[in-house]
């Protein structure tokens, strides 16, 4: 397939402005003739649905939770980056652009990233206007803090709840539009397939999760804003319901999947405490502003932390990366934690943990200041572990958190299926091989408020869209496929629960396709996952029926999709014979254990094409050229 990113020409600083002028417009009076479906109501989906409705389009928005305000964007803690340079410390759009490209280990599309940095300033303005209560200084102006991978203080935050507050801004705008009649909301409704007619995305087949009824919805364009696929690992910081079904179905209908192996492991999460563990809890990266990461210098040191003197402590991030120290980017900090644990110096009951210590910060700033900055995070930690982080160091360990990979999109955020737009974490763009902290929130809102509302107009104005109804043959056919699959899941009547399959897949993925990957491990996974998948379809036990609220059935469909996506991730990881960002291949590392890129062979986006059940997927390459940022070894020393 010919991958054309349709990046505009010209100097990078002008591409987006010129493009907006060149994009076709839909006359204000004509917008109400077009309908758009938005799947997902998080930062990207909620902002897109609200904005498209404000512009005059007829919008239908879908979410599987009971209310659009429950989207997992809500859990983001730390903050949102923007190149305002309010702190006068040298920030600029160019610097944010540069930091993000470098942070992504030179595997992102330059033009997209520049646009993101450019739009970041508008996002803050929009959120403030909606009443998002960002932290302020005494003079009444917006406050900032620093975040990983940056040497300037450019992160805006609302205590430790920035995600929730930004999402509420978008949710409130969405509710305003629902009240106005511009958006029809379908909560507790899950997309189960994409309707493609004459090669264009024309709607979705969705299931009402209360009644079980399967129903089709047609539109002139479809926007997927369904988040990331971290739950393929079972244990992640994602919400339990987060899933890849919407993008996976679209993938099987022709939307190429970009860089599936780029998954991000966040360095500071609360360690696993038992077999029953259902998810991992994130401790915001902002904690690394004031906390110091360390382990003992001695192997098997059983002394309680307050009895280990400073001389015996290895502040390994400060030692290895003097200029970034505890704020080294996530992939680097995660691998460093794994390294010291592998060396037998991990802490906690199962030796899989490192200390994040606030003793020095408390001594320097006082407990009150620390409480003001991180109060809710410290409380969260104490509730889960029953340990008091004001008195003893926190124990943390890396955990799957974010997926840089996702459906491939061009500069207009359109996938390889015309009329199917993908925004937020669900798409592959902007973050390259590693996402910097505080940039996911930025990307979701940039895509939803300020990009797709423009680019979708160009598509609608240019496409000759015939009227389709829910009685169209293709619609009926797709519905049939969905119904057949639901019934198939219920008919197996096997011996194993859905969760038991999910756990097994998750462990397999963590072991073979986690922080450190090897050709041998990946090849093994590529054998084991299809076998597990076959067993699933022969031995899964899904209780109940399809004509009722059935949470086991919901999970079963999602796990069935993870059992396919996991295999693609391993294939992608196997083919990429280099280490970059979140993708670390043990065979390709420097003598010091840092990632070793191969820019000559792998400076491209791997966009995979589904070729059918049992067939190997087909690799398409979008070459990446770096005209503005010099390719360099990514060093944070």
């Amino acid at each position, binding site marked *: 397939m010919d991958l054309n990113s349709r990046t505009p020409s010209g100097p990078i600083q002008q591409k987006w402005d010129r493009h907006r002028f060149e994009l076709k417009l839909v006359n204000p009076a004509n917008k109400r003739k077009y309908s758009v479906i938005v799947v997902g109501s998080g930062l990207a989906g909620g*902002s897109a649905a609200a904005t498209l409705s404000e512009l005059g389009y007829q919008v239908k928005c879908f979410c599987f939770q009971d209310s659009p305000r429950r989207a997992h964007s809500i859990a983001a803690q730390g903050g949102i980056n923007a190149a305002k340079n309010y702190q006068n410390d040298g920030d600029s759009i160019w610097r944010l652009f540069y930091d993000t490209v470098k942070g992504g280990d030179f595997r992102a599309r330059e033009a997209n990233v520049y646009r993101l940095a450019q739009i970041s300033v*508008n996002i803050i303005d929009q959120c403030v*206007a909606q*009443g998002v*209560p*960002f932290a302020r200084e005494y*003079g009444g102006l917006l406050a900032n803090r620093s975040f990983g991978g940056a040497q300037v203080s450019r992160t805006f935050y609302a205590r430790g709840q920035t995600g929730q507050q930004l999402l509420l801004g978008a949710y409130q705008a969405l509710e305003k539009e629902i009240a106005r009649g511009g958006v029809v909301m379908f909560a507790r409704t899950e997309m189960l397939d994409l309707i493609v007619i004459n090669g264009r995305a024309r709607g979705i087949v969705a299931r009402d999760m209360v009644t079980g009824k399967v129903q089709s919805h047609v539109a002139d364009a479809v926007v997927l804003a369904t988040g990331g696929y971290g739950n393929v690992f079972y244990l992640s910081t994602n919400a339990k319901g987060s899933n890849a079904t919407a993008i996976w179905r679209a993938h099987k209908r022709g939307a190429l999947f970009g860089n599936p192996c780029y998954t991000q492991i966040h360095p500071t999460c609360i360690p696993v405490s038992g077999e029953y563990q259902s998810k991992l809890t994130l401790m915001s990266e902002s904690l690394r502003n004031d906390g110091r990461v360390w382990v003992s210098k001695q192997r098997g040191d059983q002394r309680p932390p307050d009895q280990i003197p400073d001389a015996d402590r290895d502040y390994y991030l400060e030692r290895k990366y003097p200029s970034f120290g505890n704020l080294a980017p996530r992939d680097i900090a995660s691998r460093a934690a794994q390294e010291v644990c592998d060396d037998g110096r991990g802490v906690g009951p199962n030796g899989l943990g490192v200390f994040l210590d606030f003793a020095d910060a408390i001594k320097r700033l006082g407990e009150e200041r620390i409480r003001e900055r991180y109060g809710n995070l410290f409380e969260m930690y104490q509730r889960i572990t029953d340990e008091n982080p004001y008195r003893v160091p926190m124990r943390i360990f890396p955990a799957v958190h974010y997926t840089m990979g996702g459906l491939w999109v061009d500069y207009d955020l359109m996938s390889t299926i015309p009329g199917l737009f993908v925004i937020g974490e669900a798409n592959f763009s902007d973050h390259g091989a590693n996402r910097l902290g505080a940039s996911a929130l930025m990307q979701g809102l940039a895509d939803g408020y300020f990009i797709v509302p423009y680019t979708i107009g160009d598509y609608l104005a240019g496409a000759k869209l015939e009227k389709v109804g829910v009685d169209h043959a293709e619609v009926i056919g797709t519905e049939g496929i969905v119904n057949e699959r639901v019934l198939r899941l219920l008919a197996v009547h096997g011996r194993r*629960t859905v969760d038991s399959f999910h756990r097994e897949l998750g462990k397999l993925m963590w072991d073979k396709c986690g922080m450190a990957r090897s050709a041998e491990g990946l090849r093994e996974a590529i054998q084991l996952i299809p076998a597990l998948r076959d067993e699933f379809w022969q031995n899964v036990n899904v209780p109940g029926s399809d004509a009722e*609220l059935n949470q086991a059935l919901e999970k079963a469909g999602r796990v069935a999709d993870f059992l396919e996506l996991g295999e693609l991730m391993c294939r992608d990881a196997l083919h990429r014979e280099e280490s970059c960002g979140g993708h670390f291949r043990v065979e390709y590392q420097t003598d010091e254990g840092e990632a070793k890129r191969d820019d000559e062979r792998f400076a491209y986006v791997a966009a995979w094409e589904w070729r059918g059940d049992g067939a190997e997927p087909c690799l398409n390459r979008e070459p990446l050229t770096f005209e503005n940022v010099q390719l360099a070894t990514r060093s944070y020393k």
Partner: protein
Amino acid sequence: MNLKLRIWRQSGPHAAGRFVEYQAPGISPDASFLEMLDVVNERLIENGEVPIAFDHDCREGICGSCGLMINGVAHGPDPGTATCQLHMRRFKDGDIITIEPWRARAFPVIRDLVVDRSAFDRIMQAGGFVSANTGSAPDGNAIPIPKDAVEQAMDAAQCIGCGACVAACPNGSASLFTGAKITHLGLLPQGQPERERRALGMVLQMDAEGFGGCTLFGECQDACPKQISIETISRMNRDFLRAMLTLRPASTGAAGAG
């Protein structure tokens, strides 16, 4: 620890519900409450029974999806804690735990422990927003906001929309939920242009949904996982009174009852 659970089962919105007893042996004290229910559900499925339905998502106390009455207390015994954040070390071996959905006329039961909270979204639709269309905003620093106002607004903005306030209130009132949003936006300059409309619209919608009135029990504040203060209800009442005195009835903007 070994526990005995009494759990509300109800197969559909119009079915009669009842308490069913379940044994939960071998539960780790470090497990969370919902992880304990996961374990119970796995065993039920393995025994060919229908698992217990309950809402949950983030499992870290921020999305507001989860909500169980545990021994008659919304979100269980710990203050400032959502159901998903409650850990089994709070209970002891041999305990009997009664688990129910939120009980309120405005939150009809859908199935087992799952209730319909769409009334909350309709209250938001009646004014819980600032009308600022995308693209029209001035610079973020154009309007300085006193730090105290922001901190107070943030305190109120922390509401996760879980409904524990309603479940805990003997009147089934949604005043804390509604008051929290009115307070959050009412304290900020951006919320001023629509302040009266908002209070009027949201309070009238709250009433139309069938929630009860506030008679200052204060149970809501104690049940709230984000420890929102009932001062937000005072502010709501004040803004509502101002609205009643300054606005004409036609300009409420309230949506119809759900």
